[in-house]
C-alpha cells in the first residue's frame, strides 16, 4: 500500500513538471494488458487425479442410479388390438362404438406402491408444429372473451361447421385421449376394483395458475360456456368431463391438463392415475388382474399403438436404465483415461530423465 502511494506522488510530481503528459497513454494494468491473471494449465498432475476423481464419482452415481432403476418395476400392457387374437381387436373396427375390452395380467410378486398408472402412445406426434400451436392460451386461462372469439391458431378447430366457437378450441384439445380404464383385481373369481386416483397428476402450476376455469354464470358452471360448442371429437362438453367429481371439470380436468402438455417425442406416456389408496397403498399384491378399457381412441389409422404402463417411481423418476449405464460407462472411461495417461506420463517422465542424464 505504501508503495502505491509513493508511486502516485511521483506521478503527480511529474505531472507538475512535465510540459504535456496528455499524449502519454495511461499506465494502468488494463490499458497495458497487464491485468493480474490466473493462468491455469491442464497438466498431467491435475488431469490424472481429476479424471480419477470424476471417474470414481461417476461410477458411484452410476451404481446408485443403476440399482435404483433396477428396483423400479414396470409393466407394459399393449392393448392396441392389431392382432386378431387380442381382446381389443373387436374395438378396432370403425363400427364399434362404446366398445369395451379387457386385458388380463398376472402379478407373481407384490408390485410395490405407490403404483403409477400411465397410458402410452407411439407414432403419435404431439410435437407437430401446427398441432402444438393449435390452442388458445387466453381461452384456457378462463378469459371468456376468447370463448366467443377463439384465436386463429386454433384452426381448423376454431369454429364448427355452424360457425359456433369451439371451447376449448384447437387440435390438441380436440384430440384429447378418450380411452378410460378401470383396474380390477380378481380375488376368488370376484372382481375387486382397484381405485385409481386421478388427482395431482398434472403440474401444480398448470392446475393452479396457468389454466383456470371461467367464473360461474348465474351460479352455473355450464352457463359460462353458453354460446360455445364442444370440440368436434368430444363426446361431452368440457364442463362435463368428469361426471363423478364436479371440481375436476372444465379446463382444470386433470386428464385434460396432462394431455395439453405436449409430449416431446412421438413415443410417449402420460400419467393417468395413481394407485395409492385403501388396500393398495402398499402396492399391487400378487394375483390376477383385469384391465377394463373403454376403447374409443383410434390409433391404427396412423400406425400407432396404445399401451398401459404400471410403474412405481423412485427419486430419479420412472424406470430408466440409460442414465445409470451412461454414468457407469463415462465413469470407467475416465478411470481408463487416467490410467492411460499415467502410463504415458510415467513413460515420458523416464525418457526425460534419460535425456537429462
Amino acid at each position, binding site marked *: 500500500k505504501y508503495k502505491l502511494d509513493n508511486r502516485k506522488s511521483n506521478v503527480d510530481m511529474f505531472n507538475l513538471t512535465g510540459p504535456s503528459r496528455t499524449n502519454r497513454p495511461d499506465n494502468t494494468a488494463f490499458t497495458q494488458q497487464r491485468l493480474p*491473471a490466473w493462468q491455469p494449465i491442464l497438466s498431467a498432475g491435475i488431469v490424472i487425479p481429476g479424471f480419477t476423481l470424476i471417474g470414481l464419482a461417476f461410477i458411484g452415481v452410476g451404481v446408485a442410479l443403476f440399482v435404483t432403476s433396477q428396483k423400479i418395476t414396470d409393466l407394459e400392457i399393449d392393448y392396441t388390438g392389431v392382432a386378431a387374437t387380442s381382446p381389443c381387436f373387436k374395438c378396432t373396427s370403425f363400427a364399434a362404438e362404446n366398445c369395451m375390452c379387457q386385458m388380463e395380467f398376472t402379478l407373481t410378486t407384490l408390485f410395490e406402491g405407490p403404483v403409477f398408472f400411465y397410458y402410452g402412445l407411439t407414432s403419435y406426434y404431439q410435437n407437430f408444429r401446427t398441432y402444438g400451436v393449435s390452442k388458445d392460451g387466453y381461452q384456457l386461462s378462463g378469459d371468456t372473451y376468447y370463448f366467443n372469439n377463439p384465436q386463429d391458431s386454433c384452426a*381448423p378447430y376454431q369454429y364448427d361447421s355452424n360457425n359456433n366457437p369451439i371451447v376449448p378450441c384447437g387440435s390438441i384439445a380436440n384430440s384429447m385421449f378418450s380411452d378410460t380404464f378401470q383396474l380390477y383385481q380378481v380375488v376368488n373369481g370376484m372382481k375387486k376394483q382397484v381405485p385409481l386416483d386421478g388427482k395431482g397428476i398434472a403440474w401444480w402450476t398448470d392446475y393452479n395458475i396457468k389454466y383456470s376455469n371461467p367464473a360461474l354464470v348465474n351460479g352455473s358452471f355450464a352457463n359460462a360456456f353458453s354460446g360455445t360448442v364442444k370440440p368436434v371429437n368430444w363426446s361431452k362438453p368440457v364442463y362435463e368431463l368428469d361426471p363423478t367429481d364436479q371440481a375436476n371439470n372444465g379446463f382444470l380436468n386433470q386428464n385434460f391438463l396432462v394431455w395439453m402438455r405436449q409430449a416431446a417425442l412421438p413415443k410417449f406416456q402420460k400419467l393417468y392415475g395413481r394407485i395409492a389408496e385403501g388396500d393398495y397403498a402398499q402396492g399391487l399384491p400378487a394375483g390376477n388382474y383385469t384391465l377394463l378399457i373403454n376403447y374409443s381412441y383410434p390409433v391404427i389409422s396412423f400406425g400407432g399403438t396404445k399401451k398401459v404402463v404400471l410403474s412405481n417411481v423412485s*427419486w430419479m423418476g420412472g424406470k430408466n436404465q440409460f442414465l445409470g449405464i451412461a454414468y457407469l460407462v463415462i465413469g470407467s472411461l475416465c478411470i481408463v*483415461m487416467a490410467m492411460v495417461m499415467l502410463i504415458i506420463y510415467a513413460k515420458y517422465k523416464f525418457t526425460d530423465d534419460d535425456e537429462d542424464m
Partner: protein
Amino acid sequence: MLRRRLNRLFGGDEKRVDSRTIYVGNRPCPATETFIPPKFCDNRIVSSKYTIWNFLPKNLFEQFRRIANFYFLIIFLVQVIVDTPTSPVTSGLPLFFVITVTAIKQGYEDWLRHKADSEVNKYPVRVLEDGQPARKDSEKIKVGDIVEVVEDETFPCDLILLQSSRDDDTCFVTTASLDGESNHKTHYTVPDMEKDLQSLSATIECEQPQPDLYKFVGRMHIYKPEHDPAVRSLGPENLLLKGATLKNTKKIYGVAVYTGMETKMALNYQGKSQKRSAVEKSINAFLLVYLCILISKAVVCTTLKYVWQSQDGQDEPWYNQKTEKEKGTILYVKMFTDFLSFMVLFNFIIPVSMYVTVEMQKFLGSFFITWDRDFFDPEIEEGALVNTSDLNEELGQVEYVFTDKTGTLTQNNMEFIECCIDGFQYTAFSSELDSFCVTDGPVSTFQEKAGREKEELFLRALCLCHTVQVKEAGPDELGGDQVDGPASEPLRPAEQRGFIASSPDEVALVKGAMRYGFTFLGLESKTMKIKNWQNDVEEYELLHVLNFDPVRRRMSVIVRSKSGDTLLFCKGADSSIFPRVRPEEVERIRMHVQRSATEGYRTLCVAYKRLSVDEYAAADAGLREARLALQDREEKLMAVYNQVETAMSLIGATAVEDRLQEEAAQTMEALQGAGMKVWVLTGDKMETAKSTCYACRLFRRSTELLELTVRTLESGGRRREEMLHDLLFDFHRKAVQDAPPARAGVNRSWSSANPEYGFIVDGAALALVMNPSPDTNCSRYRSLFLQICQNCTAVLCCRMAPLQKAQIVKMVKNSKGSPITLSIGDGANDVSMILEAHVGIGVKGKEGRQAVRNSDYAIPKLKHLRKLLLAHGHLYYIRIAHLVQYFFYKNLCFILPQFLYQFFCGCSQQPLYDAAYLTMYNICFTSMPILAYSLLEQQIAIEVLLDNATLYRDIAKNAMLRWGPFLYWTVLAVFQGLIFFFGVKYLFSNPALQDNGQVFGNWSYGTIVFTVLVFTVTLKLALDTRHWTWINHFVIWGSLAFYVVFSFFWGGIIWPFLKQQRLYFVFFNMLSSVSAWLVIILLIVLSLLPDILLGVLRKPRGPHTQQIAVVTPLSYKHLREHY
C-alpha cells in the same frame, strides 16, 4: 512517371480545355469583351453524408447493402410473410438492434461532422468589396473574391497570395493540419504586384482542382490601361491552402481560386480504398460452408417431410387436420414455403451477432495499440496511431516486410562527417567541436591541402546551393519572440542558429559549412548572405533555384555575386553529377565517394559552373518560359534544367552520416527470426544501402551477395539484356535449384550449414526485369526474379523510384500463395508502397506526415515494429481466430439438436428451443465471454512473445483458420450437438422424471438441451482461456448466472404479451428433477472430455519445449501440432 506520360497521351488536351479562368475581384477585364461570371461551387464544405430528411432511407440503404445485413433482412421478411416456426421477432429483434446501433453510431458521427462543417462554413471572414473589407460567412466566398486573412487564422479556401504585410512579399504558413509538418513554410506573393488591389484588373488561368498538395500550375494576366497585359507564372509557392495557418505575418490578401469541395484539402479527404484482412476472407469461406450446411439441412428436412408424408396415414393424421388454407395450397408452393421455414428455423447457424462481435473486437482491440506505453516516444510526445482497426490480426500474419531505409532503418538525423575537396579528404571534427571557433577553427582543420581558393569555392557552394531557411532569431520587425527556437543564447549565435529545410541533408551540409567557417546568414529579398572566414558578409543575388526532385537527384542554384559573376552551383547524387562534369575530375573524387558510401554515409557531389552573360540570358529565358507554361510545365522545366546543368566542374563531395535507428538491428533480427523476409527498398545508392544492411544485420559476413545492378550488368561488356539473362539464370541456379528443398521457412540459425544469400537489385535492373524489351520473355524473367528473391534471406532494392517500390510490393503480394506483405516507411516516397501492401505502417519521422496519414498503423520508431508484430499481431490473430472458430462452433452445436429434432417431430419445423432462448442465445448468453476472451486473452505472455520470435511462425499462413482447425471445430460441434440431443432423448424414453411420477413435455426437453448447451459452450471457452483476469471470471460466470436467472424469470411469470406460456415453470420443474440434473452434468462432462483429453495428450514434451511449455496453452498448441 508512367502516369504523367499517360496523362500526356490521353488527358493532355482535355486539361487545356479544362483550365479555369478566374477574374480577380470578380471584375470584368478589358481583354475579354463580355464578362461572363464563371460558375464555380461555393465555399461550403460538406463532409457530412446525410441530412435529416435522407438519413433514414439512405442509412438503411447503405446498411442493407452489406451482404450479411441483407441476408438477415431476407430471413426476417420470410418470417413475416410465410407461416414459419419462429416468430419474426426472433430474428427481427437482433437485426433491429444491430441496425439501430449502427444507425445511431453513424448518425452521431454525422452530427459531429455537421457541427464541424457549420463551424467552418459559418466562420466569419473578411472579403474585399469595393476596397472595403466586408464580413461574410466563410461559405459565401466565391472564386475570385479577394480575402483578407490575419495572423494565426486558417485560410478559408485556396488562395493565390496577392499581398502580404511583410516587406519581402512573403508570408509564413504552417500546414500542420494538412500534412503534419509544423515548420514554417514561406510563400511568395505574385511577383511585381501593384499595391492597390482595388484597381487591380487581372485574370488567373489555372488548372482544374487536383488533390496533390504540392502541385499547382497557373498564370496570371495583369491588365493595365496603357500597357500590354503582363503575365506572371504561378506555382505552389504562391498558393495558400485551405487548412493551413498564417504565421509570423500580420495580414495577407489573396484571391480565392479553389473553394469548398474543390479545395485541395477537401479533395484529399477522400477515403482510401478498403483493405480486407485474410481473416475476413476465411470468415467468408466458412460462412459459405455454413450456408451450404444450412441449405442442405433445409433440403434434407423438406425432402424427408414429403417422403414421410407420402406414407400411409402420416400426411394428415386425424388428430392434426389441415386448415382450409393449407389444403388449398399447391404442392410446390407448399414445398417451397416449407423449405423457407426450415431455412428460418436453422438460420441461427449464421448469427447476426458474429459480425457485431467481430467488429467490436476489432474496434475495442485496437485501443490496446494506442494505449501501449511502450509505443510512446518521449521525443515527439506521441504514441502509436491506429488508422484502421480492420487489420489488427493481419499484423500477426506478415510474411514479407518492405522497409524504407532513410528515416526508417536510419534516424534521418544527418550529421556532416567529412568532405573531399578536389580529391583531398577533410575528415570529421566532431570530437573536438569545442576547439572550433569562428576565427581560427577552419585554419587549423584545413591543412591547406587543396588550395584555399578551392576550399572557399566548395564552402560557398555548400552555403549557397540549398533551399534552407534561417529561423528568425533575435529582434526584427515582427518580434522574434514568436519563433520557437533557442534564441536565448546570444553568446554563440552562429552555432545556435536554427535552420529549416525540406530535407535534413541540406541542414547538415549548411551546418557543416558553418563549422568550417562559412555561415549562411539567410535569404532576404532574393539576396543570400554568407559570412566567410574573414567575418565579412558576402552577398549573392539568388537568380534561380533549380529544384531538387527524386528523378533528377540533384538541385542547383544560379546566383550573381557582388562582382557580377553569374555562378551555378549544383549538388546531387554521384550518378547524376558525374556525367555532367569533366571526366578527368571524376576519378579523383569517385574513390572518395565510394569509400564514404561503403562506410554507410550519404554522399553528395558538388559542382559549379561559371555562366557567361549569353549563357545566363539563354538559361534565364528558358527557365522563365518553362515556368509560365501551363501544359507539361515539369517536362519543360526538366529539359531546361538538363540543358543548364552541363559541363560543370566538380569541386568535391560530402559525406553525411545517417545513424541507425535505435535497436534497428535487433528489430530486424527479430523479424527474421519470426520467419519474415525483410526487403529494403530505398532510393539511396547501393553502397550506402548495403552498408546499412550490414549494420542492421540483414546481411552478415557469411552472406553471399547476389548483385543484379547496372554495374554487374555492364561489367561483362555485353548487351545488358544478355547479361541480365545470364545473371538471372546463374543466380537462380545458385539460390533456388542448388538449395536444399526444405529450406523455405527454416530458421537461418538452424540452417547455418547452407550458404545464405542476399540479393541486391537496383532500379535500372529492376526496370529491365519488369519491362524488358519485347523480344525477351517477360514473365519468365519475373518469375525467375521472384524465385531468387524468395530464396534469399534478405533483399536490397536500391535506387528505387516510389512507383517501383509499389511495383515490387505488388509483385510479391500477387505471387504464389499470396503472402501477407507489410510496408513500413516514413516519407512521402513510401506512400505508394504503404498503400499497396496488405498492412501499411507509417513511422512518425521527420519527413512530414504523408506516410502516417496514408498508413494503417503509425508508430514513432522502427523498434516498435517488433512489439507491434510479435506481441500485438500475434495476440490479435489468436484472439480473432479463436473468436471466429468459436462462433461457428457454438452455433453449429446450437442448431444441430434442432435439426435432429426434426426427425422426431415429423419434420414439421417444430423448434426445439423456446423463441426467447433462440433469440437470446447469441445476444446475451454466449456473447460476452467470447468478447472478453477475444480482447484479453494472452495464451503466451507478451514478454515471452517478444523474447521468442520463432513463436510467430506458429501462426504463420493463417494457421488457426485453415480448413484443418475449422474441421476440428466443426467435428467437435457435431459431436457435442449429437451428445446433447441423443443424451436427452434417451433420458426421455421415459418422460416421468420426477419423483411424483409426473411427465415432462417437449419444452422441458428443449430446455434441458439448451441448458447443457449453454453450459458446455461457455465451459469450453473457459477451458480454452489461459489468461483469467477478473473480467473473464466476471463474464463467464456472470453469463451462466444470467442464464439461470433469466430462465427463472422468463418461466416464473405469466407474460401477458405471450400467446402461449410455453416455458411457464418449465425451468423450475426441470431443476426439481434429480434425473435432469444428473443428465445435465453427465452431458456437459462428456462433451468436454475429448477437448481436455486432446489438450493433455498433445502437450509438448521433451526438454526442448519445456521452457516454452510452462506458458504454452494447450488449445492452440495442440491445434498447431495436430494440423
